């Protein structure tokens, strides 16, 4: 399993070899640094911790500064653990070359926050009843949330209004269309969660 941390740049479209117009997302991925190698003996499981993006010294705690110093690198903005990389060592650099064109990757990020939304936007409900014929204030209503004296309660997990977006979402099986190694850019087919400049995690 190979993984890398990146920053969403935005979307564009490119033409495939057979002339089709393909919508794409550009991600500036890496270069990342291995900041810790976790071993079975010491940590109870195997993983590599990888860092991406710069963080100012004054925003890092002393403990974190020591952690980064051990890896021989500057403080990083984002740290992510990946299941073991083939013999990655402390301080190793991971670049977009971990991926190839034609690979399928999963991209995880934080979706755009939409605030507290009703059931129509949040769950795709259709609302209740008509817009006219004497009807009022029911157009975006959720309808009934339960039955009567039995079960005499509302079931757990009932779809209701609430916070929408701003949570971790993973888009799976997205094709890597192109890689620009010298600019650390990965071009991925389709859309990925989050806004521009948001941090995303790519995994193969």
């Amino acid at each position, binding site marked *: 399993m190979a993984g890398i941390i990146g920053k969403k740049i935005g979307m564009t*479209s490119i033409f495939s070899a057979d002339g089709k117009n393909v919508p794409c997302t550009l991600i500036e991925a890496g270069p990342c640094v291995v900041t810790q190698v976790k071993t079975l003996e010491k940590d109870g499981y195997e993983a590599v911790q990888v860092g991406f993006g710069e963080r100012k010294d004054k925003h890092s705690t002393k403990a974190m500064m020591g952690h980064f110093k051990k890896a021989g690198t500057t403080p990083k903005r984002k740290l992510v653990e990946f299941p073991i990389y083939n013999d990655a060592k402390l301080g190793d650099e991971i670049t977009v070359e971990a991926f190839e064109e034609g690979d399928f990757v999963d991209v995880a990020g934080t979706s755009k926050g939409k605030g507290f939304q009703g059931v129509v936007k949040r769950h795709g409900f259709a609302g209740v009843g008509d817009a006219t014929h004497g009807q009022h204030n029911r157009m975006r209503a959720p309808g009934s949330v339960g039955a009567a004296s039995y079960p005499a309660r509302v079931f757990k997990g009932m779809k209701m209004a609430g916070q929408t977006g701003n949570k971790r979402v993973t888009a799976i099986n997205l094709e890597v269309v192109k890689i620009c190694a010298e600019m650390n850019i990965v071009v991925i087919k389709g859309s990925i969660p989050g806004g521009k400049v948001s941090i995303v995690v790519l995994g193969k």
Partner: protein
Amino acid sequence: MDLIKELQSELVEMKEWPDFKSGDTCVVTYKIKEGDKERLQSFQGVIIQRKGSGATETFTIRKMSGNIGVERVFPINDPFIETIEVVKHGAVRRARIYYLRERKGKAARIKERRRFTKA
């Protein structure tokens, strides 16, 4: 955003066409794939709009086929486009001449724009 613009030229082959804008009458010649054969087809009409910028810019071209209006949207950098030829420069006052859709026959005429070449 600037990074996207920079990269777009690298990712998409930018094509060069003669200068054309909305109101102009153009002939777009494009390749059509039928099975494994390719042939050329042309579409003559009025440019209704140019939309977007950079590698993803598109234009809409409209013609009257008999009594029915036909519009096609092409990406400017579409690899299937062979040539774009400007037949007539039109004098219009707006960038998106949607009002043409409600007009027919004589009313849908567009005045020709005289072009003076700068010495």
